[in-house]
């Protein structure tokens, strides 16, 4: 075993030697401390290794040859070894960041830096409480002094505030120690722990004073004004040191003292930690200054750690597990927060909006992305698993308030981190960065370190399985080959995904699963072709795209809740990255990720209330004999409805669908929304035992679906932007699916799934065709297009086929889906809903008519006279979709029969539903009917062909007219666009029905956002910047907590 005394001695001796070495050469002293820090870190790793092979090794060392109470003991166990290894590693990285500053300021700064690390190491190792006080003071004083190395006014002021606050807290700590000593007669923590609990109030006060002394050093809200000023003004290398090394060491001291606390005290401090987490994140919401934002975020994360340690201990979890969970949060924060502080130092930009400098530097942008995503707890980063575990435990022990606080705080965190990332990825970039290697090196190491730790964690994590790693692997691999030409990457992606889909995904799945696998994965693979239209490498698409598709498959393939949630979050993340590629997608992507995270957190809460799933047995099968309560069902249901864009929570949808790149929009609309359908279906299966079509809940769900269909259609009518029109149309179609699912009958589900399949085909088709139009015309406004039928006949045919299918006119498959929906609704006696659904379909004609008429018919615009047909890559998926639509239109059995079988696994097929050849016969007690898609097709063909032949015969007599022959149309060319008939085309309907589509939902969410921001601004006012106010905060906070504890 490594003697920890050596570690401390090494620091101390080197710190003294630095003064001499520095006289020889500045660089010698700098490289000496690098060596020392690396050796110290290595000692930690070595000790860890030793303990792995020899777990029973004695890990306590006594000073001066006496045993515990008489001497100071140091403990170098597993936890200490991990901390020593990590803290010194980050000490090394931080020192390399500070290389230039060390070169300037010399021996003093270098020695002080070593002393900070000495204090931190000592604080981690010691088991003596007074010794802790000494190391705490070494740590603090060295930190105070190192702040002053950067001699500007603000850092000096912040330094004074920090010292006063630190002075007060160490006074409290010291009095607490001596008071506790009076009651226990020893200063050794282990001896204290072995004593039976002392019940006198005086001892409780002593513990309180000790606890609060340490706790204030952990910067709890609102007694943390001094810390925020410090983070904002100090050199970024020092700020990073304080937020990582310093905080970690003090946090560990807090953890060591925790077993001494009475439950009441621990409860109060745990609550204070949670409050710090929520409010820190809330105030960070409106921060524009990057360093100060990081300060708030840092205090919030420390609060989260205090909270998790306390909450999990209070719930009686074994310490090993508490530590493992906390380690997940801790590591993420350590890597990401130090990294972000360093990044602040590299960009030298304080205003968040100016972070767009990163845009020209994709390497730094990726690093920034890794840190930001890790910090907000997305997979595959350790904090994701930690949060998952914590929420599961809270759910099992019914700690609802804690769960709510944790989730609210996390959501706020997502908002500001992603807004920041958006600024960096999408802002206007003007200048280039100066990037010295000494500053880049720690950034790269911590980003790589975090990524590889996360990768191996996901790989090793129990209950996850190899499948779950594929999305991440795909992201990494395609990220590595991202410089290859896009065509090659496309072929590789299609090959890999098809092989995986065929050999891995499909075989274990039941029919229902295969169906969704085909929709989600198959539907996406077809659309990969569209991405191949780009020239050159088109970097940035394929990593996210392949991750998205693998994750989609994993959602169906999941056998545990964790696998499902992991895949779901990876899908969300991938979709976010894809949306962010859009030119003006900053706000849209932010909305998407915020709403998705909101949904994900609801889902997380819902999952925690669900019975456990069996590993290795697909959820889709388990669902059949599992049941969940109404609350988890509600939470999960809302989560999935958000992904589908149901009315009320659809706010993100039009923005995301319209601002993403066209291929991405197509995937989002046609495929991604079906993941929500899959989820909702699973929820309905889980509650199918105690819910039926006539239950209030299902009626309500039905109405949600109906209104989604109705308002979606109505809003689509009034759009000028073709993509927004399609977005709302998508929302509307998903509404029909919700209605169908809400019926809880065999027929209802078949109709919903039939529409889901159809929607994939026709919405993919229309989006692809319109993508071609947008590409060629360079606009999305329909009134700026016209007469494209001659220039882009294939697009026209695709759109024509698509809108026939959407509108539900015979002979195409849309007719079948509408027939199914109406029939199943009527069969259940939901006449009112049928009527409104029918009305929505009528409205659909309006927007579909507008789409095809204004874009393809009418006058060709002069500036579009050279428009060409779409590239082949956009036509391939269109061709596939058209063939699919034709196939299921002519032979509906190939899809309806498997659907009926698949649904039959969950809800048995009623006797009265049968297939007679191609004729679907319905003979229920309440309704009779039949539908023969095959026959409908032939009849319509006939009806179509006879006039066509007649037309061809009489065609000889027609007069060909050129565009500017005024007889051709009622439209006059060369008018300003806004007087064009396509502009505000349905103004008269808007007069009649417009009041229904007033942006109430928008107003609501704007109000919510406004409310949070002004709350955030108001709360931030407590940080007046006055050092005395901050001290007052600390005193009042202490008194408040003391009164809460209520010791007399």
């Amino acid at each position, binding site marked *: 075993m490594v003697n920890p005394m050596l570690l401390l001695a090494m620091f101390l001796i080197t710190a003294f030697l630095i003064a001499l070495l520095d006289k020889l050469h500045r660089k010698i002293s700098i490289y000496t401390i690098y060596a020392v820090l690396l050796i110290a870190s290595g000692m930690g790793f070595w000790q860890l290794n030793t303990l792995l092979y020899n777990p029973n090794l004695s890990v306590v060392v006594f000073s001066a040859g006496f045993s515990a109470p008489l001497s100071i003991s140091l403990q170098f166990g597993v936890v200490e070894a991990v901390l020593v290894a990590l803290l010194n590693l980050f000490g090394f990285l931080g020192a390399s960041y500070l290389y230039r500053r060390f070169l300037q300021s010399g021996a003093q700064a270098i020695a002080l830096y070593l002393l900070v690390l000495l204090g931190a190491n000592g604080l981690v190792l010691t088991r003596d409480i*007074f010794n802790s006080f*000494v190391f705490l*003071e070494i740590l*603090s*004083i060295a930190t*105070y*002094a190192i702040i*002053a190395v950067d*001699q*500007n*006014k*603000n850092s*000096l*002021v*912040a*330094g*004074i505030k920090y*010292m*006063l606050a*630190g*002075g*007060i807290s*160490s*006074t409290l700590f*010291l*009095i607490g*120690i*001596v*008071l506790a*000593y*009076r009651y226990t007669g020893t*200063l050794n923590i282990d001896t204290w722990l072995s004593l039976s609990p002392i019940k006198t109030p005086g001892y409780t006060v002593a513990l309180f004073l000790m606890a609060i002394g340490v706790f204030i050093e952990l910067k709890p809200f609102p007694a943390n004004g001094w810390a*925020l*000023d410090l983070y*904002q*003004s100090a050199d970024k290398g020092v700020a990073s040191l304080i937020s990582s090394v310093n905080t970690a060491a003090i946090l560990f001291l807090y953890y060591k003292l925790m077993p001494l606390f009475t439950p009441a005290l621990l409860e109060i401090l745990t609550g204070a930690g949670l409050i710090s987490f929520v409010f820190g994140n809330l105030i960070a919401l409106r921060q524009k200054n990057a360093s100060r934002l990081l300060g708030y975020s840092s205090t919030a994360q420390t609060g989260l750690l205090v909270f998790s340690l306390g909450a999990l201990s209070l719930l009686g979890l074994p310490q090993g597990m508490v530590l493992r969970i906390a380690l997940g949060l801790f590591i993420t924060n350590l890597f990401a927060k130090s990294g972000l502080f360093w990044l602040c130092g590299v960009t030298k930009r304080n205003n968040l909006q100016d972070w767009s400098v990163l845009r020209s530097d994709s390497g730094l942008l990726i690093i920034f992305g890794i840190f930001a995503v890790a910090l907000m707890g997305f997979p595959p980063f350790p904090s994701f698993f930690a949060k998952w575990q914590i929420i599961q435990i809270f759910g099992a022990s019914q700690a609802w308030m804690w769960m709510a606080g944790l989730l609210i705080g996390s959501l706020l965190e997502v908002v500001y981190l992603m807004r920041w990332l958006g600024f960096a990825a999408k802002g206007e970039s003007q200048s280039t960065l100066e990037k010295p290697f000494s500053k880049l090196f720690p950034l790269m190491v911590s980003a790589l370190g975090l990524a590889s730790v996360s990768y191996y964690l996901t790989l090793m994590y129990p209950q996850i399985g190899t499948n779950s790693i594929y999305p991440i692997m795909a992201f990494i691999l395609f990220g590595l080959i991202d410089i290859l030409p896009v065509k090659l990457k496309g072929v590789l992606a299609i090959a890999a995904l098809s092989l995986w889909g065929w050999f891995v995904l499909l075989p274990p799945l039941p029919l229902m699963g295969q169906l969704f696998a085909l929709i989600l994965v198959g539907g996406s693979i077809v659309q990969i072709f569209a991405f191949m239209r780009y020239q050159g490498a088109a970097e940035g698409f394929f990593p996210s795209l392949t991750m998205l598709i693998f994750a989609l498959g994993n959602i169906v393939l999941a056998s545990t809740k964790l696998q499902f949630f992991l895949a779901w979050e990876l899908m969300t993340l991938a979709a976010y990255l894809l949306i962010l590629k859009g030119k003006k997608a900053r706000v849209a992507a932010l909305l998407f990720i915020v709403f998705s995270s909101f949904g994900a957190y609801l889902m997380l809460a819902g999952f925690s209330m669900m019975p456990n799933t069996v590993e290795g047995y697909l959820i889709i099968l388990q669902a059949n004999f599992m049941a969940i309560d109404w609350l988890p069902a509600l939470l999960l249901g809302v989560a999935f409805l958000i992904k589908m864009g149901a009315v009320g929570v659809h706010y993100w949808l039009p923005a995301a669908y319209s601002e993403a790149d066209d291929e991405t929009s197509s995937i989002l609309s046609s495929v991604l929304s079906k993941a929500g359908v899959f989820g909702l279906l699973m929820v309905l299966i889980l509650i199918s035992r105690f819910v039926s079509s006539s239950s209030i809940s299902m009626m309500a769900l039905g109405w949600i679906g109906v209104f989604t269909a109705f308002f979606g259609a109505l809003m689509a009518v009034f759009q000028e932007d073709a993509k927004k029109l399609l977005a709302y149309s998508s929302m509307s179609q998903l509404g029909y699916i919700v209605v169908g699912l809400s019926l809880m009958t065999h027929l209802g589900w078949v109709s919903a799934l039939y529409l889901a399949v159809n929607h994939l085909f026709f919405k993919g088709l229309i989006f692809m065709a319109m993508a071609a139009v947008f590409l060629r015309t360079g606009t999305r406004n329909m009134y700026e297009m016209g007469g494209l039928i001659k220039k882009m006949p294939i697009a026209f045919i695709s759109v024509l086929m698509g809108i026939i299918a959407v509108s539900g006119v015979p002979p195409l498959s849309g007719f079948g889906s509408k027939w199914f929906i109406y029939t199943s609704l009527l069969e259940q006696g939901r006449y009112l809903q049928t009527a409104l659904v029918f009305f929505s379909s009528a409205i659909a004609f309006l927007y579909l008519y507008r789409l095809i008429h204004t874009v393809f018919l009418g006058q060709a615009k002069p500036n579009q006279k050279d428009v060409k047909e779409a590239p082949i890559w956009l036509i391939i998926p269109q061709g596939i979709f058209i063939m699919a639509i034709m196939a299921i239109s002519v032979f509906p059995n190939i899809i309806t029969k498997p659907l009926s079988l698949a649904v039959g696994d969950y809800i048995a097929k009623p006797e009265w539903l049968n297939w007679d050849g191609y004729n679907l016969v319905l003979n229920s007690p309440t309704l009779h009917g039949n539908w023969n898609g095959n026959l409908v097709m032939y009849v319509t063909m006939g009806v179509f062909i006879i006039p066509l032949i007649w037309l061809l015969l009489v065609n000889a007599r027609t007069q060909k007219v050129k565009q500017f022959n005024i007889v051709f149309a009622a439209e006059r060319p060369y008018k300003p666009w806004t007087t064009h008939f396509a502009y505000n085309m349905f103004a008269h309907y808007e007069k009649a029905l417009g009041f229904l589509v007033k942006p109430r939902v928008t107003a609501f969410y704007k109000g919510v956002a406004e409310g949070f921001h002004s709350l955030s*601004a108001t709360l*931030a*006012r407590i*940080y*007046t*910047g*006055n*050092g*005395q106010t901050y*001290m*007052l905060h600390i*005193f009042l906070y202490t008194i408040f907590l003391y009164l809460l504890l209520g010791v007399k």
Partner: protein
Amino acid sequence: MMVLICGLLLMLIGIWAMLIKKNIIRIIIGFSILDTGTHLVIVAIGYVKHATAPIVDKAVNISQNAEGGIQVLGKVVDPVPSALVLTAIVIGLAVTALLLSFAVRLYKVGNSLNINDYEELKW
């Protein structure tokens, strides 16, 4: 008991000065008073009534026990708090000195010692 009360009183005076006085030097003096008060309180906590200093000399009633070791019969004060105070005084000194040097530098940069003049960092 007197010492304890004096110590607490000094602590209160120190806190009062830290919270009320606007001059940074005075605030630091307040901090120093708070520190001294703390030290007195610690010594008072360790004090045992009618006991002597924990130094083995005539003032302490001692006897030899069977093995030849020294056995203390009289009351002595617990030495640990006093020892701790020594450390605490040193640390307090260091912090005070550092605070003063900050104040001096701040005055050079900002030409004022009024703490209200340094509120740029906020919210």
